[in-house]
């Protein structure tokens, strides 16, 4: 697993309090990992800080799964 994926997973595990093995490629933050809509906003904030990038609101809306987040960040950073 890439370095980006590891760092994203760490944030997700810490923020949502879920088991690491639940955070799979297609795991949806809201449907599978128990996030509410505000959690997803906070996750995006945490990604922005961790990776020093800006994630615009319209892009943030497309980040639904762990895989989406990793892919977006790899392309942005």
């Amino acid at each position, binding site marked *: 697993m890439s370095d980006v994926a590891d760092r994203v997973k760490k944030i997700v595990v810490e923020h949502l309090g879920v088991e690491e093995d639940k955070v799979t490629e297609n795991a949806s933050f809201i449907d599978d990992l128990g996030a*509410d809509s*505000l959690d997803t*906003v*906070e996750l995006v*904030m945490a990604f922005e800080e961790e990776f020093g990038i800006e994630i615009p609101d319209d892009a943030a809306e497309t980040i639904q799964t762990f895989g989406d987040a990793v892919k977006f960040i790899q392309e942005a950073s």
Partner: protein
Amino acid sequence: MFDLTGKCALITGASGGIGGEIAKALHAAGATVGLSGTRVEPLEALAAELGERAHVLPCNLSDAEAVAALPKQAADAMGAVDILVNNAGITRDNLFMRMSDDEWQSVIDVNLTSTFKLCKGVLRGMMKARWGRIINISSVVGATGNPGQGNYAASKAGMIGMSKSLAYEVASRGITVNAVAPGFITTAMTDKLTDDQKSGILTQVPAGRMGEANEIAAAVLYLASPEAAYVTGSTLHVNGGMAMF
């Protein structure tokens, strides 16, 4: 009671009567205060009066770029924004039939849109801190309406609806959002009224007197305090009984 030691508060309209008293009350409770307003001189004078823990942050709220920059300037100056008091407001009264688009829009921009933007700008820090207080200064006319103030009343009612919606969204993060709705308060704005106008107004106020700015400040201090953690989405009416809800 009401200890705000270590908290940082941004207050807009701090050059005015009510804003100045709010700043003094929060400062006296131990908060660091960021004094924002358009007129630098009264802000500097207030900061000098308060001494330590006071920062002057000039900002014209009708300037969208300046509004966007203010939350960061405040956080840089004070270290954080734990408490936001959206107190600044303008009036441009006119009969509804005669009200121009510009009179409408400028009041909505300064009173309502800048409140939205400033709330948005400080939320990130509050969410991370899992603590925050937003207090929006509305007005009794936001609830009752007032002839000649269609724009102002709309902006002040809008602040209440906005506060409630935001209160829902962020309550689980330890952030409260409330409104304070002053009635007739002795300020530079009401000093302009004639004695006849004043006595006319007072017939509608059961308390039989105008309110003082420090009576608004006391309500804000309460809502900003740790003790008010369970109060959110509410509107505290401070109006001498002029309108009861």
